[in-house]
């Protein structure tokens, strides 16, 4: 029997101060670090945390494994981009429309898929996302089809005549990402300490039992999905405006859905900081592969000769296979640490503590 630590609704002083310190440092980060690549990595981590945490509300807390979450990411991305590119509506307004669009899709998907359970729900969520992808591909006159949408210009953000930012650097995206991250973490924390959070977890643990305790499955599952979808669309919108290009095969792809799930699985599902850990592990790893840092460092350090067969293999191919790391990680995590890195670390720490005692 595992005794559980007392359920705390308040936060201890030490974690609160640490948290505050981290947030302050993160806000100051762009003032001291001007390296654009570092900012780029941070923004990617923020986007990953937002999409992971949003999925976590539905998959981690409510136990409904959607493997079609690219649908909401894509709705955010497409709505914001289409409004900005074709209707001259600035992205900070477009994002709201993206949220509404994601909500509408979520309600439709929820009404279809939540009549199904377990693996059938997983399959249905994939099917719906695929329908959206193929539609985006085919509705060429509104989405540009397979060509995708390329940003030509982001209008400068002004408040009362004062220029806030013209989006010429990465800094505004950094702050937008940071605010979104704080928002999803806040939402998750509030959820954990509310009736809604208890109901979500009860549904995850046992649907029939939850139902018999007065919990309407359809209602609460749809609430979880809607919340999750709206927040996921934020990640999609930010990604689209930041990268400046979207097409169906990047923002509406099954790969993306899988990536979203993996962020949570690797970090540990159903915890506030699981997706943060997952993003911190995944993004740098996959970036290192994508930018061929690993191959280059192997060559630069003299371990592998650049003109050898293996060297040219590394420089040419390794960068294409950055998704490989997702595959390896998920297999390792599922087989050896089913509670994610966070759970694994906790269990390890608990074992250590026991040994000491």
């Amino acid at each position: 029997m595992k005794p559980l630590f007392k359920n705390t609704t308040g936060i201890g002083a030490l974690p609160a101060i640490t948290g505050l310190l981290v947030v302050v440092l993160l806000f100051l980060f762009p003032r001291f670090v001007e390296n654009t690549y570092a900012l780029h990595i941070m923004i990617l981590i923020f986007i990953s945390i937002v999409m992971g945490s949003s999925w976590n509300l539905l998959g981690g807390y409510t136990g409904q494994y959607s493997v079609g979450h690219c649908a909401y990411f894509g709705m955010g991305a497409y709505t914001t981009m289409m409004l900005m590119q074709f209707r001259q509506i600035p992205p900070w307004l477009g994002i709201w429309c993206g949220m509404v669009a994601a909500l509408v899709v979520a309600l439709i998907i929820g009404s279809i898929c939540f009549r199904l359970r377990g693996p059938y729900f997983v399959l249905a969520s994939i099917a719906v996302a695929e329908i959206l992808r193929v539609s985006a591909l085919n509705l060429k006159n509104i989405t540009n089809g397979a060509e995708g949408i390329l940003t030509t210009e982001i209008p400068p953000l002004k408040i009362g005549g004062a220029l806030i930012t013209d989006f010429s650097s990465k800094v505004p995206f950094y702050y937008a990402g940071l605010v979104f991250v704080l928002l999803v973490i806040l939402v998750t924390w509030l959820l954990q300490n509310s009736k809604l959070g208890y109901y979500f977890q009860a549904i995850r643990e046992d649907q029939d039992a939850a139902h018999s305790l007065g919990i309407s499955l359809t209602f609460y599952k749809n609430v979880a999905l809607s919340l999750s979808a709206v927040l996921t669309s934020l990640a999609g919108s930010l990604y689209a405006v930041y990268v400046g290009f979207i097409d169906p095969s990047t923002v509406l792809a099954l790969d993306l859905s899988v990536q979203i799930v993996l962020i949570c699985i690797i970090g540990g599902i159903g915890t506030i900081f699981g997706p943060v850990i997952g993003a911190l592990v995944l993004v740098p790893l996959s970036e290192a592969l994508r930018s061929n840092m690993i191959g280059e460092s192997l060559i630069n350090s003299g371990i592998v000769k650049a003109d050898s067969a293996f060297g040219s293999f590394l420089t040419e191919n390794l960068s294409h296979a950055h998704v490989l790391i997702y595959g390896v990680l998920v297999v390792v995590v599922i087989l050896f640490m089913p509670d994610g890195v966070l759970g694994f670390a906790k269990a390890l720490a608990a074992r250590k503590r026991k040994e000491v005692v």
Partner: protein
Amino acid sequence: MTIFLQSLISGILIGGVYALIGIGLTIIFGVMRVINFAHGDLLMVGMYGTFYLFTLFNIDPFISIVITMPLMFLYGGFLQKVFINRILGALPQNQILLTIGMGLIMSNGIMLAFTSDYKILSTDYSSSSFDILGISISTPLLISFAITAGITVVLYWFLLKTDTGQAIRATAQDREAAQLMGINVKRMSIIAFGLGASLAGTAGALISPTYYIFPQVGSTFTLKAFVITVLGGMGSIVGATLGGILIGVAESIGGVYFGSGWKEVVVFVLFLLVLLFKPSGLMGKSNT
């Protein structure tokens, strides 16, 4: 009318291969209750095997299945023994994620080894066809359909008449009971996954003369395989056979009447409708 017949027939021919993919998935699901998300990637591995047997050793794709089939069987058995057997008691979600991970490793491993370039296996009959009553029939599709039919017959015989086949069916029906009857369930699982992999690989070999070959080709087939098995009723081999042909026909006719870009949507909408209104499958018994 000719267009309709034309698309009906090519749908049936393609459907034969789909059936093979679906049967593989349904056997795996039946015996282990695991939904194999790496199924399309197994097919992709089969395609690459066939491609290199053809380009390096000049072995005709339809003949190379003699090599692909047993190799894929061993590969599948290996995957089962090393990975899947460890998580048979785990949450279904974790099983799904594990197979997704295995699929990613396969597709990205292949990408690493052979780049993401599209490869085309062109035989001298790849684009040949002949006419019957004004309907043109593609030669490679017809050959692959004939081979599919042959394999299906042998497979039915194996499952119905041999001891191993019956043990597999018994395990699929009730794992615990089969265990009590003295059936080595772990061994049956290895055979089942090997069988599934070998059918997927064979399907890959059969379509390689008519499809582009690239590392990500699997995911479309994984999705199609799900649709087929759900249509036929999870675990039903007859259902998967019919489901495969039905999907082939739906795709082909949908492509003609809605435009080829939308044919996949037709399939997925059909899938959702079945999930909603008859989740036990068109062939399955209604439990609700």
